């Protein structure tokens, strides 16, 4: 008769074996879904995209450049790779991965107010770290312990909100992100406040590297600041633009103050659908997506003039 201790040891061994086997099996199956999805980053790593214009940025970039409307306006193929809390180093990694897996675009738009971000998105992007050594390195740098857990347990990298997005967009694209034409009354009441755009050094450096890389490959680049609501205008905007222009050696198309109607903003820093339509009209007027413009030309967007 086996002793209780031996039976317990066997039970624990069986548990470990089943957990690891199931972990690998489920992760393998779910990772197949990750690359088959219509989610933006799934498309990057599946390859075969022929986008003319790529957009990078944080939530402001994601909301301000809805692909269907820009495609309708320009007749170009657009892929918006912005996502909440995307910082320029993450944008750089995704851009390089895109160029590895897909034909180069003709233009890259980078929403540069994302230089104030801390790159929290890298936590979510662990779902794609298995497909990208660049993202894996960024994740390892930000979360060394969790990165080890991710190597031990294959399901763990799929533990993200982004994975739910992947599942949600298995069949339909995710390129039509626009917030509802609704501004919560409470947000409208928030008083006008003084705030500054405080860029991070590593983010500025990444923007400069992106500009350099794109120019070296003959891809046009647009550094842009999308609108802020009147009560949310940063006090150091001019200084911020000068710094970026100097460090990145590229003009910044500033639309920060382009829209004066607070009711077209969802929350002061994000446009809602009416604001986006208004912004696109301004971009069309400025020929923002015009492919003929010479890279590096001094640009004064109408909004900042």
């Amino acid at each position, binding site marked *: 008769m086996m002793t*209780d*201790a031996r*039976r*317990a040891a066997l*039970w624990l061994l*069986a*548990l470990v074996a*089943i*957990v690891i086997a*199931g*972990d690998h099996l*489920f992760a393998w199956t779910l990772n197949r879904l990750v690359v088959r999805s219509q989610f933006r980053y799934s498309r990057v790593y599946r390859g075969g995209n022929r986008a003319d214009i790529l957009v990078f940025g944080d939530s402001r970039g994601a909301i301000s450049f809805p692909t269907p409307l820009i495609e309708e306006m320009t007749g170009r193929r657009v892929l918006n790779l912005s996502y909440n809390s995307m910082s320029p180093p993450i944008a750089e990694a995704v851009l390089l991965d895109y160029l590895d897996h897909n034909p180069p675009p003709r233009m890259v738009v980078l929403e540069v107010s994302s230089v104030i971000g801390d790159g929290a998105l890298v936590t979510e992007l662990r779902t794609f770290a298995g497909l990208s050594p660049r993202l894996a390195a960024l994740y390892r740098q930000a979360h060394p*312990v*969790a990165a080890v*857990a991710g190597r031990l*347990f294959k*399901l*763990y990298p*799929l*533990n993200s*909100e982004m994975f*739910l*997005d992947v599942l*949600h967009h298995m069949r339909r694209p995710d390129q039509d992100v626009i917030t*509802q034409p*609704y501004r*919560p*009354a*409470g*947000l409208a*009441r928030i008083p006008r406040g003084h705030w500054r755009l405080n860029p991070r050094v590593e983010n500025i450096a990444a923007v400069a590297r992106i500009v350099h890389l794109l120019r070296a490959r003959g891809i046009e680049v647009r550094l842009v600041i999308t609108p802020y609501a009147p009560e949310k205008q940063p006090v150091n905007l001019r200084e911020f633009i000068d710094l970026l222009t100097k460090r990145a050696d590229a003009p910044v198309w500033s639309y920060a103050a382009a829209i004066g109607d607070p009711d077209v903003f969802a*929350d002061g820093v994000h446009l809602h659908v009416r604001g986006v339509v208004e912004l696109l009209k301004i971009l069309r007027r400025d020929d923002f997506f015009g492919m003929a413009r010479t890279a590096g030309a001094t640009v004064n967007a109408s909004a900042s003039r």
Partner: protein
Amino acid sequence: MLFNSLAFLAFLPLFMIAYWSTKGRARLWVMLVASLVFYGWWDWRFCFLLLFSALVDYSLGILLENEQDDARRRRLIIISIAVNLGLLAFFKYFNFFVGQAAGITLRIILPVGISFYVFKTMSYTIDVYRRTQPAERDLLRFTTFVVFFPELVAGPIVRASRLLPQLARDHRFSYERMVSGAALMASGYVRKVAIADSIAPLVDIRFAHPEAHNSWSLLIGVYLYAFQIYCDFSGYSSIAIGLARILGFDFGVNFDRPYFSRSFSEFWTRWHISLSSWLRDYLYIPLGGNRGGTLRTLRNLMITMLLGGLWHGANWTFVFWGALHGSYLVVERAFIRRLPRVIAILVVFNLTCFAWVFFRAHSFSNAWEVLSGIASMRGSLGDVENRWRTLKCAVMIAVMLGFEAAAWRRTTEVSPAMRLAFVAACAWVVLIFGTFSGNNFIYFQF
């Protein structure tokens, strides 16, 4: 140390090895030292407070047993209650009462779990005073009873009559206990790490800025909170009870599917059972219980629930939460007859959720913002933020409730193979849905 921390992951196997390789008093020493390490992980200074509390009640317990004079015994029990409630009053309620009365506030750090261990030691001396519990004369065993780490910081409140006799025995390792304990721990981790911690940010954002959310979003936030606090607290209890079971101890049940209750009196026999039974035995019954007529019974119910609310924290919102539950019990007892089962469950659940708004809100104005936001009927269901995260949580809650309903009907014993499959499934759920940011358990603040 948190059950959901890397430190505990390292601590547990070391403790298990030390525990099972010792016997008798050596094992008690292992438990004592491990418990102090576990508790001191937050702030080692509070270990002295814990030991002081244990030493006072150990001494008073022996004095109470030895003393034959009733007047002196009364004085001794008053000293015990005064010391215990004094600790609680100073650390937990000083700023609340003195601050409000005299405008003086001190920066006082609340020792983790003080409400739990104070109630545990206080019930011991009261039982010795009533002569329903013999005084423990072994200081090592008594101190281990007070500091025993699985239930030290957030319960269940295991009384001396249950735990001290178990500490006097040398438990032999049991395969069946290990397997069933592991299954309980696994279900606790799923509830805490996968469900409660996934819900937490969705609730936090709604209560932080109710004005920025539409009615549906706020209503969903309130329902989510009901499950967050349930999963958080019952998860902790399951981990504690499961761990104790592996060690050979029986802590009893602390949560028994409370949201399936058909009445509020039933709810309070299913929610935080160790606290509600404590309040019943040491407050409600001494106040007179249901003896002395309807009005006195209703008064006693109300007082018990008000103090139960205050036990949770030094804030009028907790008192109001207790008052609401007291009112529910009073109205139910005075007026309500039996309702159809499903309707009764829904009524009890929704009124419980209404009370949770005050429990969760940081102030009455915050609670009012949430409730008036819900009543304003603004926005639509389609505009609810974080729909996919909300849906994920809803699915996990539904699965958990399905398991609870199934467990209710189960009459046969679960085999070790089934438990193996269950624990493995829990591990996968935690891996893919768990939150590993080391969130505190909600009840730690109490």
